[in-house]
Structures are given as C-alpha cells and as structure tokens.
C-alpha cells in the first residue's frame, strides 16, 4: 500500500479546466499504488464457478489472458447489446455535449478526463465503433473508433472500477444516459474472462455461502446481537430480545450485515431494535438471509439474483406477511428497481400494512417490501412514537442523501421528516450537493478497499467538501446517512477530510430520542457519549 | 420487437411529421398556378430571368430612389427610359394583380407590402 498524501497536498495542482496534451486514446492507465484495486484471488472465482486468470495483478506487464479473449469479449458485448436496450441505446445516442463532464465526483477529485462520464462510456463506445461498424473502421480515430487491444482492456479495468455507479451524471444528461448501467454491464462483461476485484468478490462469496457479506455465521450474528442488547440494557435499563428465524412473525426484517457487527452500523441496529420494541412489532431477522445489501450488483447481475433469492425463500419458510428493509443504499436500489422483476410475483406475501397505524403501504402493494424510513415516518406522522428530540441536542446533524436511494428510488423526504422529529439541530448541506444532486461517498459499488485509498479520498472530496462547509459554518458534527456502505466509507472520508465529524444512521438518532416504557433515565446516547447536560453524571 | 405498440405509434408519428409535404398534398395533386403574362408585350424592363428572381429588390430600389431621392426615370441596360411607377409602368402591361402577382405570391407565402399604398389595376377599374 502506498502512503496517502496529507489532505492539503492531495489535490495540489488540480485544475478542472486543463486537459492533457495527448489524445485520450494515447494515454495509458496509471497503475501506481493507491490508484487501483487488487485483482481477484482465483480461488474465489473457482468457488463461484467462474472463469479465472490465475494469480495475477493489473500491474503485470502482460496479463495472463486466454488465447481467445478478444472473441469472448466481443461476443459478450454483442450479447449485452441484445439483452439490454439501455446499453445498446446509450452506445448510440450520446452527442458529447459535455453536460456530464464535471458532474462526476471522480472527475472533480482527480481532474482525469477519463473520469468525465462521457469519456468513461466512450472507452467502450469507441471499441463498438471500431470493431462492429464499417464507418468506424474506415475513419478510425476522427470518428472516435479504435480496435480492442490489451491496453484498452487495462483501461476498462481501471475506469469501470473508478465509477461508483452513483448515477449523478444521468440526472444531468439530456438523454438520461446512465453511466451506472454502462459500468455495471462492463464489469459483467469483464467477469466473463475472470477479471474482477478481490475486495468486491470476497464479500460476494461470503454472502453466497454463509449468508452475508461479512461472513458472519449464524451463531456469531446471535452473539453479536446479544452483545449489542447488553449495551442497550446498560444504557436504557431494558432487557430486549431480538427474534431470530422466528416462524410466523408478521415482518421479516432484512438489513445489511454491517449493522450487526461494524461500528457505526451497530448503533443504527440498536436504534431499529429499540423502535421495534417500542411499538411491539412482531418481527424476525434471519441468519440465512442475513444480508440486505448485494455485492452481486457490482459484479455480475446473475450473482445478484443468486444472493437475494434467499430472502424470498426465507420469507416463504418463515411465513411472514411482508418484508421490512433496513437502511442501505445499493440494497434499496436493487430491491426497489430489480427485485420485482427478478423474484416476483409475491403472492405468498401480503400487501404491507403497518400493524400500529393501520397504514397500507400502497406504493409497495406489489413488491411487499417497505423501507424502514417509510415505516418510521408513518409512525411519527401518526404520533405513535414518544420522542424526546433534546436527547440529540449534543449533536448537530446534516443528512447525506445516498446515491442509490436518491437517484434509484427517490426517498428524500422520509428520512428528513424523521430527522426533524428526532433532533433539534438539523442543517442541510449546500443545495447542489444534496437530494438528486447528492455526491457519492467515493467508495461505493465495491471500491471500499484500503489499497484504493487515494482515489477514494479524491472521489469523496466533493462530498467531504460540502460537509466541511456546514461543519465550519454551523458546527455540524454528525453526518447522517441511510446506507451501510456510507457508514463505513464516510467514516474513513471524514477522518481524512473533516476529522471532527462522525457518521451515523437515521435510526441511531431515533434510538436516542425514543422514550421507552420502563427505561431508566438516560445519561448517554447509544455510543456512550454523554447527553447534553449529563456530562457530569457520566 | 418489444413495446411494439408504442414503437409502431412512434414510427407513425415520425412518418406523419417528416413526410408532412406528402400528406398535405395527398389526394389533391394538381399543376401549380401559373402567372398570366402580358399578351402583347414580350419583353420586361430587364431580362426575364433577372426579373423573376430579383423583381422585389428591383421594385424596392425604385421606391427608394423615387421617394427618397426624388428621381423619376429609370434607364435599363439597353438604355431605354422608364418612368419609375408600379401602377403606371409595371401594371400597365401586367394589368391584373390577381392573375399575375398573387398567383405566385400566395403559392409561396409571400406578403409584399406594395398594396398597402398602391391600388391594383382591378381596383382602379372599379372606381373609374
């Protein structure tokens, strides 16, 4: 691993309006430490029944490609064009107007023109023109066409794994060209040769064989939960039990596995549990389908289907009525936009109805899965929660819209409504960096790996810069997000760029604010930090 | 083909729009109206090709020289002298506005402002 430059040095010399002298087709990808992710361990690919290239790294001068690699790739490209209208269309209709150019967080943090979404797509578009089109072959570079070479392949590896599929560019594109779609499909195509990231594939294998990305075995999940419950007991004086694999529960609750195990997700998990206890929800979690997130989505769409098939088998087995999903970004993009097509119809489930308020979630009448923020917002709107927002007075909060839930689902108001009810100090970041224009954490879609730290910190810079603004001007010290990956990646990002800000989930704050029946007077929040005015009691 | 209904509707709309000239003429194809030329006079003030293309520039020039500079006569390329007057010179031979001017103008959506001040020969006859 390389040494990461200091924050005030990282972006030195960055100029968004200067371009290289050389044509982009002549610039080779820079595989220096900190700027690329390690290639997948072949054993992982073998376990998952996929082709592999043996032991290799992208830095190798010559990649151990099979003889027929080119034919296989071209065949895969044609296949995707036949199966995905989006891909075929996006390859055809770009006019290179450049509206997307400075919308990508990776471009804003690196100034590398290949991080302009238009050029990222051009990396494959040029090959389609150069390999499949008569005029493309005839005119070559002036028409933006080039043949597929090993250099191109290296470039793909670099730049399709330097995109977090956040879709910010697609908001601004006059034709709605979605680079996320291109990136997802290109990674899928690279998979056909066995080219993948180690860090993105290992969680996938865990999730496939064990049930969740972190590889937590069922007893570990149980132990962890019990450990968190003992914290709750200490903080609130309540002994709460979390139902595990309980048959006949009304609701199956599925959340990213990081919430069971990793700081700061565990505080969000404690928030969920307090909420469910507060309203007396009849729910269960599953140790078989113990992962709401889906790393298949960043690797190969077929894997994605394998992983989440379990949720629906589990829903059938446990005979639940409907499914409640925890706070997670790509989980919800995948659930919301893909599940209905992949796993439907869901006749064995019932249209979700809140047992507390009686609200029927009409917008989920087909898929039967509800986002926890929708569920909680409904509870608060019906006055079913006893809340003391002053218990969050020790923090000043801003809300980070996660890319996937924003631009792939459209959940903007629910979490804000909850936040305004559970805390008194809520500040928005600058207008052009939130909601549908939100910036990615810079490490989503399987790039959350240590060897990639320089690019991650550059990619996360626009987000961090907006946080820094509200931190300096309004004293914001807590960045709230409804995404498990955000809770991990933003923590690293804040540590680097804005060290005084911590990252939390919405339901962690809900947990702080909930006045539980029979609880003792709280002196600390769920992280054992003293509440405002309680500093001396602790 | 997927989403066939919508795609076919789209193709139809595309054809309706871009083949508009064909549809607007559909079922009523006929010869274009021909301007009626003077029977006696065979030669205009300048040669015909020039007059066809540039008569509006030519008349505009007459207007300017006559109204602004007060000149009355125009000498053509052959040295012949004409009095610069739409009503008394041009319309003397082209004695029917409707059959000469309007046929082309209407057909090509040209709205000259000559007749805001001038009277067409047909109008003049009515008053005589």
């Amino acid at each position, binding site marked *: 691993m390389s040494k990461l430059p200091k924050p005030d040095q990282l972006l030195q010399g960055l100029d968004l309006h200067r371009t290289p002298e050389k044509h*982009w087709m002549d610039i080779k990808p820079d595989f220096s430490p900190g700027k690329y992710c390690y290639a997948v361990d072949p054993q992982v690919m073998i376990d998952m029944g996929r082709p592999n290239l043996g032991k290799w790294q992208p830095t190798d001068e010559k990649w151990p490609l099979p003889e027929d690699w080119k034919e296989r790739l071209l065949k895969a490209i044609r296949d995707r*064009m036949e*199966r*995905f*209208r989006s891909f*075929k269309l996006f390859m055809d*209709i770009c006019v*290179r*107007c450049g*509206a997307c150019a*400075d*919308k990508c967080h990776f471009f804003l943090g690196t100034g590398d023109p290949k991080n302009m979404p*238009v050029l990222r797509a051009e990396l494959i578009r040029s090959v389609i023109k150069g390999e499949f089109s008569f*005029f493309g072959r005839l005119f070559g*570079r*002036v028409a*933006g066409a080039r043949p597929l070479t090993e250099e191109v392949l290296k470039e793909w590896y670099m730049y399709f794994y330097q995109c977090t599929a956040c879709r910010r560019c*697609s*908001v*601004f*594109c*006059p*034709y*709605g060209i*979605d680079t996320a779609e291109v990136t997802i499909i290109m990674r899928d195509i690279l998979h056909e040769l066995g080219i993948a990231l180690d860090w993105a594939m290992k969680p996938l294998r865990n999730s496939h064989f064990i049930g969740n990305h972190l590889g937590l075995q*069922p*007893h570990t999940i149980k132990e962890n939960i019990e450990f968190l419950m003992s914290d709750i007991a200490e903080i609130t004086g309540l002994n709460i039990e979390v139902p*595990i*694999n309980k048959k006949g529960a009304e609701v199956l609750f599925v959340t990213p596995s990081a919430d069971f195990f990793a700081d700061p997700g565990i505080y969000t998990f404690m928030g969920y549990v307090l909420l469910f206890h507060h309203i007396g929800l009849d729910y269960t979690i599953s140790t*078989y389908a113990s992962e709401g997130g889906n790393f298949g989505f960043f690797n190969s769409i077929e894997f994605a289907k394998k992983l989440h098939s379990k949720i629906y*088998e*589990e829903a059938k087995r446990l005979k639940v009525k409907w499914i409640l999903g925890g706070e997670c970004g790509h989980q919800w993009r995948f659930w*919301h936009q893909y599940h209905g*097509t992949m796993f439907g119809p869901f006749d064995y489930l019932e249209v979700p109805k809140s047992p507390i308020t009686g609200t029927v*979630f009409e*917008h989920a009448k087909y*898929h039967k899965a509800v986002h926890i923020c*929708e569920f909680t917002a409904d509870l608060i709107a019906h006055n079913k929660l006893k809340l003391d927002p002053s218990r969050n007075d020790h923090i000043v909060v801003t809300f980070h819209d996660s890319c996937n839930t924003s*631009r792939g689902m*459209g*959940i*903007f*108001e629910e979490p804000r409504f909850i936040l305004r009810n559970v805390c008194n100090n809520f500040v928005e970041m600058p207008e052009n960096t939130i909601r*549908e*224009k939100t910036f990615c954490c810079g490490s989503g879609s399987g790039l959350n790996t240590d060897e990639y730290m320089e690019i991650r910190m550059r990619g996360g810079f*626009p987000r961090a810069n907006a946080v820094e603004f509200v931190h300096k001007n309004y004293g914001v010290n807590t960045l709230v997000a409804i995404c498990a990956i955000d809770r991990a990646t933003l923590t690293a990002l804040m540590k680097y760029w804005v060290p005084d800000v911590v990252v939390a989930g919405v339901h962690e704050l809900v947990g702080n604010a909930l006045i539980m029946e029979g609880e003792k007077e709280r002196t600390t929040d769920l992280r054992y930090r003293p509440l405002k005015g309680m500093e001396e009691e602790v | 083909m*997927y989403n066939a209904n919508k*795609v076919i509707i789209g193709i139809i709309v595309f*054809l309706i729009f871009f*083949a508009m*000239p*064909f549809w607007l*003429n559909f079922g009523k*194809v*006929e010869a*274009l109206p021909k301007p009626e030329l003077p029977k006696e006079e065979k030669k205009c003030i300048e040669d015909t090709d020039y007059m066809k293309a540039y008569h509006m*520039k030519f008349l505009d020039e007459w207007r300017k020289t006559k109204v602004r500079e007060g000149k009355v006569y125009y000498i053509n390329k052959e040295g012949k002298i004409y009095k610069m007057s739409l009503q008394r010179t041009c319309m003397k031979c082209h004695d029917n506005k409707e059959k000469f001017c309007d046929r082309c103008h209407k*057909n090509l*959506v*040209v709205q000259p402002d000559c007749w805001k001040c001038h009277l067409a020969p047909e109008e003049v006859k009515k008053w005589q």
Partner: protein
Amino acid sequence: MNLIFSLIVLAILILIPLIGVGVLGLSSLFAIFIPYLAFAIFFFGLIYRIIDWARSPQPYKITTTSGQQKSLSWIKHSRLESPASSWEVYLRMFFEVFLFRSLFRNLRADFDGKRLIYGSAKWLWLGAILFHFSFLVIMIRHLRFFVNEVPSFVQKISAVDSFFQLGVPPIYITDILILAGLGFLLLRRLVDAKVNYLSYASDYFPLLLIISIALTGILMRLYVKPDLYAIKQLTYGLATFNPALPKGNLSMLFYIHLFLVSSLAAYFPFSKLVHMVGVFFSPTRNMPNDNRMSRHINPWEYPVKYVTYAEWQEKFRDVLEEAGIPIDEEWTNVAQK
C-alpha cells in the same frame, strides 16, 4: 485536427454539386435522384434504427429518480422527476424532449480556493434550445415549397417569423437565431477545454454542415436570389412524386443547398443525430418509478442456482443447534420433495 477534417469533408461536399452541375451538367441527378436517395436513406435508416433498438428488451425498470418518490399519502411526490403513472411519464418526457429539462439543470463546478462551488450554467441549454427550435420552425416554413395550397399555420408561422419586416424580402428571426445557436455550440467545442478534448470530427461535422445549410439558405433569401417559382416546381414535383426538372434557372447556390440537405438526411441515421428518436427510448426517463407497485417483466429472466435454506442449514447445523437457533426439518423435508 478534428475540425480541419470536418472542414475538408464539408468542402468536398460543396465541390460535388459545383462540379456535378456546374461542369458536368448533371442537373437531374442532383435535383431529383440524389434527394430521393438521401431521403430514402433517412426514412428507412431511421426506422431501421428504431426497430433495432426495439428488438432489445429493457430488462429492468431503471428510472432515474430526480425527485421524491410516491410513497406515503401525506408526502408530496414529484410528478415530473419521479413519475408514478403513465401520464406523469408522458409529462416528464414532454419536458425532456421539448424543453430539455435535464439540460436546464446544468451546473458548472469550480474551485473557489479550497472550496468546490457550483454555479448555474444555462448557456448550453439556451444554445441548444435556440438551435433546435429554430430548426423546427425553419423546417415548417419550408413547407411552402412542398405544398400547393400552403396551410394557414405555415403562413402564420412565416408571418410571425418575419415580424420585424427588416429589408425586402424581410429577414426571418429564426435564421438569425439558428446561426446564433449553432455558432455558440461550435464555439463552445473550440473554447471549452473539456468539451474540446472530448470532441471528435463527427461532433464538428454536423454542426458545420447545418451551419452551411443555414448560410446557403439565408444567402438565397437575401442576396443571391434564385427563381423561386422554378424551385417550387421542382420541390412540389418531388413531394408529389411527379419529379421534373423545371425550365427556369435553379441557380448553383440552390444545388449546393439541396445537396447539403441531402447529405444531412443521409448522414442522420448513422450518426449521433439519431438522438432525435433515441431520446424517446431512454429507459431512465421513459419508465415510471412504480417498481414496487406493479410488475415489470424481463423476457430473458432465467432461474439461477443459489444456496437453498436446506443446504445452508445442513452446513451450519452444529452451530445452529449450539446457539439455540431453531432447526427447521419441516421445510427441508418439503424442499427435498
């Protein structure tokens, strides 16, 4: 380099009718045959492209949601940015296609010291709107050459377009606006470093081609006048499939204009200009955000092999029992059958 290449191609395109008609006298070829061929390519080419896109299914409903989803009844959902019904999608598409709504959002990112700031950047939108709408009006105005009795809406549009009555014949407002729009779009590609870097010859060429078409048209209207009656005889004949070369003089400039228009028509289906019809197919814009309300079918969806509960329970039986997590024999028995 890319610009020079486009200029050379354009110069060749202008030379072709100059030599073809001026030197070789191939009037019929350039007045009748080539326009027919070009427009046949335009129509069949575009329909082919449309059908080609339609032959690929859109497997998943991947709306880009740029606004609040429809969820709880008391939360106002964004009808345009997160449409939940068909008519809301139509509305979104209308704004997208006719008013370039997404482009209107455009921002420009810049460093202010160490702070990233985002300013509004609507120039691209303005240039694009000027160009596209002027082009539309100009095309509608040209109907006067193709229809015997020109419909009143065309007359009205022409009247409004020449509202200022500047000169004889009066100048059209859209003629100036289209040049302003195109000029801006071209200048932008030359001046803005980022856009310049990503432009190909195939980006300059259509701009230059359309500018040349507009310029030859304006020249013919204002300065180098052709015989309009003769032109209408030709164009009306083409539109009604009774093509004949008229007696009058069509003028060299007209031949160039017509040849450039034919080139544009023939080039259209095989270039980025297909965005005109492609935009209607864009799955991130033309699909409702109703994924959890109704089912979207993927025609090639196939079953996958996954680790079933029975397999999983078998693997973890020991730890499950030890941790006191219930074992489900009932389900595994059912599953085995």
